[in-house]
């Protein structure tokens, strides 16, 4: 039995509505448009980086319902109704860096910054789930993010330091 190929009918573009960084956003996508490209091109969230498109480098990592995912391995049409966080959502309204970002800055956790959005979001998800991680746990959780510049020590230091700072704050804003 030969399969019926849907010839002569091009895949239709659809409207994708979703929440990004707490804001309702919308854009147009044909089925093959990757979520990473949709976020960058349709929503102009160019903090989402595109590296390998194979899921191994981690540069495209965003948070979907709080969990880190590879936006290069999901299609925009699958993200209808989803709640996403990108790196653009980390800093405050006034541009004030969040504790993780400040820590990366202080501990030289970045040089060119290409991998940084992926690292920040992965680390953020880690600290939500494990507020007091060991160094091994940090390294384990970040194993899926590749950095070509830093050699990783500054990144691990930054996450460990941010964890300690958030731990000390105990939920209240203030301090150092």
């Amino acid at each position, binding site marked *: *039995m*030969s*399969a*019926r*190929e*849907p010839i002569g*009918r*091009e*895949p239709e573009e659809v409207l994708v509505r979703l929440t990004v960084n707490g804001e309702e956003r919308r854009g147009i996508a*044909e*089925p*093959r448009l*990757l979520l990473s*490209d949709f976020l960058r091109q349709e929503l102009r969230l160019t903090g989402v980086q595109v590296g390998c*498109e*194979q*899921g*191994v480098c*981690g540069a495209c*990592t965003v948070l*979907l319902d709080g*969990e*880190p*995912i*590879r936006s*290069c*391995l*999901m*299609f925009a*049409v*699958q993200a209808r109704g989803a709640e996403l966080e990108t790196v653009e959502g980390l800093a405050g309204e006034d541009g004030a860096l969040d504790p993780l970002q400040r820590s990366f800055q202080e501990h030289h956790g970045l040089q060119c910054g290409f991998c940084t959005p992926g690292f920040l979001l*992965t680390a953020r*998800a*880690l600290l939500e789930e494990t507020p007091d991680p060991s160094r091994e746990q940090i390294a384990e*959780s970040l*194993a*899926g993010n590749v950095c070509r510049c830093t050699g990783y020590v500054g990144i691990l230091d930054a996450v460990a330091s941010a964890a300690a700072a958030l731990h000390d704050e105990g939920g209240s804003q203030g301090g150092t």
Partner: protein
Amino acid sequence: MKPAPFHHVEVATVEEALGQLREHGAHARVLAGGQSLVPLMNLRSVRPRVLVDINPISELERIDADGSLELGAMVRQAAALRSAEVRSLAPLLADVLRQVGYPATRARGTIGGSVAHADPVAELPAALVALESEIAVQGSHGERLVPAESFFQARFETAAGDDELVTRIRVPRLPRRCGWGFAEIAPRGHDFAIAGAACLLEIDSDRVCRSARIALLGVAERPVRAADAEASLQGRGLDGAALSEAARHAAGDLEPPSDVHASGRYRREVAEALVRRALAEAARRGGGGS
């Protein structure tokens, strides 16, 4: 690169999915977690004209524990890792899942997807072979249960036809006194493995091995049970000599493929070391000593 154009069809039930697969045959691929399929589509190694998106099928997300462990095909790897049922009924699986990809791929990747994809270096197929699991495959003739060992046939080839869907994975209850171990090697942490070994040892109260199961990944087109090695351990005390001999048996007849990642010879040699390591871990866990 970017994927070739395709039609995206969301289905809400297994019956709908099967209908789509029957209609489009080889032009359709099933989209589960996408962590193995989408990389291939991004390279244009595969160019399905229709993607049958089974993500909305909630009945496939169930984890049931009723003597044996039943995992729906759409159970996310992260969910399986967190599951109390998986940890108590199939702790080998929980151990192995920690080595599968990264948190970001486990958030979307599924148990059924890894099974259906049948990558020879994947961890889950080897673990399921060691656990003597059964794969439930549904098609127009209804559901059939395929033993894991016969399900994985070759690289990216399984017993499931183009018009069939993997729906559940059944892991039988383990014998009471059972130790498990898993060891693999990969150039970069959790990236694609070169080789690995999943072991289960049933150990009696005299610390003698009642039965052994050893499954290898990365040494052939599909997971391999090391039958000679398993036989060599039966009825033996699990001292260092017994484990080393079993590891030698396991590696002995292997003719692993050579590729850019490792030579066949390296795979064979490292397989022996990994079996030794996994057996030692299983022996320790099962109370078998040394």
